[in-house]
């Protein structure tokens, strides 16, 4: 049974809030994230941007529980630190920046891994797991690739397969770390537009990092700017993506254009002209 949102009837899409409170992460003696507070409202899309080394990925890893941190990260109403690994995986689906693609694994088998947190100790796939997986592959136009090896796909196709795995997970929160980093402009837009569609279909909370300032302002309700491990700006694209903010933290001169739908596009000027 499927609901109009595309989710099976037994999974209720409850939007979950995410809250970082006083989060600090030290890696190799360096303060990568320092005393950071950030709130992401359930069902909204927040994009985290910042110069290289600002701590964007580390902030996501504190959320996904893959880096030791101080402070608390709340997922829904629960402290992430006390959630069992499996329960956390039912709430957060992660699209990593550099996904490990196992050689010789087919697209279907790879996407099926997303069902893991819903499976028992043996991680045995049920008929329902397989049905959910084919539905998602179908939704992302990947059915024709089901038996191909993931490693044999192009960058754009591969990224769609990784997104498919995260959707198969049926988690209310989607965490994406630079989901477009190896894609050309057309494929970047494809992936981001896909995530935007899926978000409204499934009422997902989206937490995403991006480095490409030109597209950032068109795919987020809120933008958080990190610099030196601290949150330096937080607001709507219109509030945050100003020439002054970008000059201050990136040291480049940009022109911004505000659109009627409150989105912002950014174009860059070469320095020293």
């Amino acid at each position, binding site marked *: 049974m499927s609901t109009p949102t595309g989710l099976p009837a037994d999974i209720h899409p409850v939007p979950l809030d995410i809250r970082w409170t006083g989060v600090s992460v030290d890696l190799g003696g360096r303060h990568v994230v320092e005393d950071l507070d950030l709130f992401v409202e359930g069902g909204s899309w927040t994009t985290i941007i910042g110069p290289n080394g600002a701590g964007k990925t580390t902030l996501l890893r504190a959320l*996904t*529980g*893959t880096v030791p941190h101080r402070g608390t990260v709340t997922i829904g109403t629960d402290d992430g630190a006390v959630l069992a*690994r*499996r329960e*956390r*995986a*039912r709430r*957060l689906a*992660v699209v*990593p920046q550099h*996904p*490990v693609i*196992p*050689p*010789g*694994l*087919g697209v*279907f*088998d790879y996407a*099926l*891994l*997303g069902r*893991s*947190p819903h*499976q028992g100790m*043996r*991680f*045995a*796939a049920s008929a329902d797991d*397989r049905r959910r*997986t*084919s539905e998602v*592959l179908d939704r992302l136009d990947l*059915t024709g690739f*089901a*038996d191909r*090896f993931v490693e044999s796909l192009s960058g754009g196709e591969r990224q769609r397969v990784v997104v498919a795995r995260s959707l198969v*997970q049926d988690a209310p929160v989607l965490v994406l770390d630079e989901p477009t980093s190896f894609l050309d402009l057309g494929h970047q837009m494809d992936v981001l537009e896909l995530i935007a569609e899926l978000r409204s279909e499934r009422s997902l909370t989206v937490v995403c990092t991006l480095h490409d300032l030109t597209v950032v302002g068109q795919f987020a309700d809120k933008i958080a700017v990190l610099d030196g491990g601290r949150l330096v700006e937080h607001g709507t694209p219109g509030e945050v993506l100003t020439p002054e903010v970008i000059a201050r933290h990136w040291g480049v001169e940009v022109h911004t254009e505000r659109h009627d739908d409150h989105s912002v596009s950014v174009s860059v000027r070469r320095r020293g002209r």
Partner: protein
Amino acid sequence: MPSGSRLGAPWLLAGVGAVLLAGVVGVATGPVSIPIGQVVRELLDRLPLISMDSSLSATEQAIVWDIRAPRVVLGLLVGALLAGSGAAYQGVFRNPLADPYLLGIAAGAGLGATIAIVTELREVIGFIDPVPFAAFAGALLAVTAAGTLSVRRGRIGSPATLILAGVAVANFFTAIQTFVQQQNAETLQQVFAWILGRLSTAGWGEVRLLLPYAVICSIGMLLSVGALDVLAVGDEEASTLGLNPRATRRIVLVVASLAAAAAVAVSGLIGFVGLVVPHAVRMVAGASHRRVLPLSLLFGAAFLALADVAARTVQAPAELPIGVITAFIGAPFFLIILRRQLTS
């Protein structure tokens, strides 16, 4: 509708067919030639509800049941355990080069067995043979050492790192074993007989000894196929998919080491089976452990039984150690995989 890699009846039938074929060929081959048709009839005759006259003489029946059959069955079990544990090690370490022999597991088992033999543990314990247990302890120690040496802060080193660690561990354990042996020269013959492989002296006793381990380990490894598939995406992603990578690795390592050690304990050191068979399976059936593990068990069994046939016939009436046959096939195979690793 696509449904991904499941074991599937065709693969299962192919594997079972290979085991039966290797079994029949193994029983039919030897200095006294017995036609395959008669062997099949003789074997079927033993099945419940089937009565068939194979027209074998009493001597031929004795050759089939007391000499050849136990040896073939032992070969099947050892082959299944070595290939299955190889597939499990490769999954756990995400390393296509992992093999019980190359990881130093065989050397560890050898050291354990040697210590058990020279200290005459059997006299101390009495009612059970402690050699397989000592071999298991040594195997677990070796794989833990090799694994620990190549994993640093939760990061797994390159495939070559693990193999080099295994080589170092194997040499170290072999050195200790040689030392222990020299200190106890009177047990030398017993130790060597153990090390050089013993499919040739097999009776039903060894089969009875190995069978419980084979059953338990095979079930254990088959239960882990789902977790091994999750582990294939690396520790961090596996963790975000709800799997505890460290605990999983530890459990699978124990089961695979028990399997390898049990095989080594009854048959001595046979290399490369755990490398060649899972790799060949992956090439034709894909890398999902849902297929690789069960098929490695089946084709590993068939492979070793046939390797034993080769060992018995190549220089007939003399016999080659079976490890020579497996190394002859396996070492070039290893080099091919190694080269592929270098280019990718």
